[in-house]
């Protein structure tokens, strides 16, 4: 029970500190579950995140379900899902009920202009950390560059990138084995 509550708490913290879309969640997630609690490794975050992209639903909720599941099985996964969405549920309901002009207010707009700058820097730092555990040779560098450019310049869904790069990984490893 205590463990479940801890999963819920960690997910709640990730959910409430994520400003500006799902990607902003990564730096918080790294801090809460990789660095502070050491529940998963950077590699696992990347694996879960990649699979989460291909599965239906909200990417970051899916990622947290993987992490909760790893800690405490099915019920842990559910605790993580509920914890992640709980803050949004409370905050949005309050805003919808009380603050009709919330998003139009000058203060909110400026605060979020500032937050977005911070999110840029935090995502940059997150990528720098993930880089170390994912781009381990020149082939990985090519995959990284191809996917980053492809996703910037085209409208292709991330699902395709994830599937193709998984296949590429398998082909590359098979070739390595053959050449030995």
């Amino acid at each position: 029970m205590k463990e479940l509550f801890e999963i819920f708490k960690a997910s709640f913290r990730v959910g409430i500190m994520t400003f500006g879309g799902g990607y902003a969640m990564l730096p918080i997630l790294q801090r809460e579950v990789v660095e502070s609690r050491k529940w998963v490794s950077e590699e696992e975050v990347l694996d879960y995140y990649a699979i989460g992209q291909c599965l239906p639903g909200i990417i970051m909720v899916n990622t947290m379900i993987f992490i909760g599941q790893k800690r405490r099985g099915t019920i842990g996964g559910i605790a993580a899902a509920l914890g992640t969405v709980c803050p949004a549920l409370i905050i949005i309901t309050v805003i919808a009920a009380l603050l009709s002009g919330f998003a139009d207010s000058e203060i909110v707009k400026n605060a979020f202009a500032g937050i977005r700058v911070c999110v840029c820097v935090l995502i940059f730092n997150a990528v720098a950390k993930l880089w170390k555990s994912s781009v381990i040779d020149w082939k990985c560098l090519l995959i990284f560059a191809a996917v980053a450019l492809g996703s910037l310049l085209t409208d292709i869904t991330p699902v395709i990138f994830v599937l193709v790069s998984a296949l590429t990984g398998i082909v590359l490893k098979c070739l390595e084995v053959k050449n030995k």
Partner: protein
Amino acid sequence: MIILRLWWEFFKIGLFSVGGGMATLPFLYDMSDRTGWFTYDMIADMLAVSESTPGPIGINMATYTGFTTAGVLGSLAATLGIITPGIIIVLLVVSVLDRFRENRYVEAAFYGLRPASTGLIAAAGILVIEIALLNTELFKKTGLFADVFNIKALILAAILLFLTRWFKPTKKLHPIVFIAASALVGILVF
């Protein structure tokens, strides 16, 4: 009854939208056409609120739609609806994955997946940079190269980069500290 329908409608969104919060948008337009629960204008409002509050955008949209349609119970139903498919499917995938974790093909797939995953995140980061640090709109209007850069934002970014990466006393602080400080700077300076 409307509660159950909300849950079901958002269950379908959760089931069919793959690839992030914005993927839910087309489904919301479709829902608006079919149910009349909200208008296109309200979707735009919801999007603005979702982007200026914590939490994944898809969840925020579900909560907001649920609330405007059927109050607190509605927001609960819609939010639970959108995450239900994810919970079921992720748990199924885990049980399959655990069995094949040591398989060398699965390992090889992850070898290719990890840099791709990092690449997708980097691309998303670059999109945020365009919104947060550059004035592409202003540049299009004036054509002056100096207008491309949002100077105040760039200075803030440089300071944050220094504080989060190289300045020992602040390097280890929780990211939320920097987010809060940036919000304050935004209110006072921007």
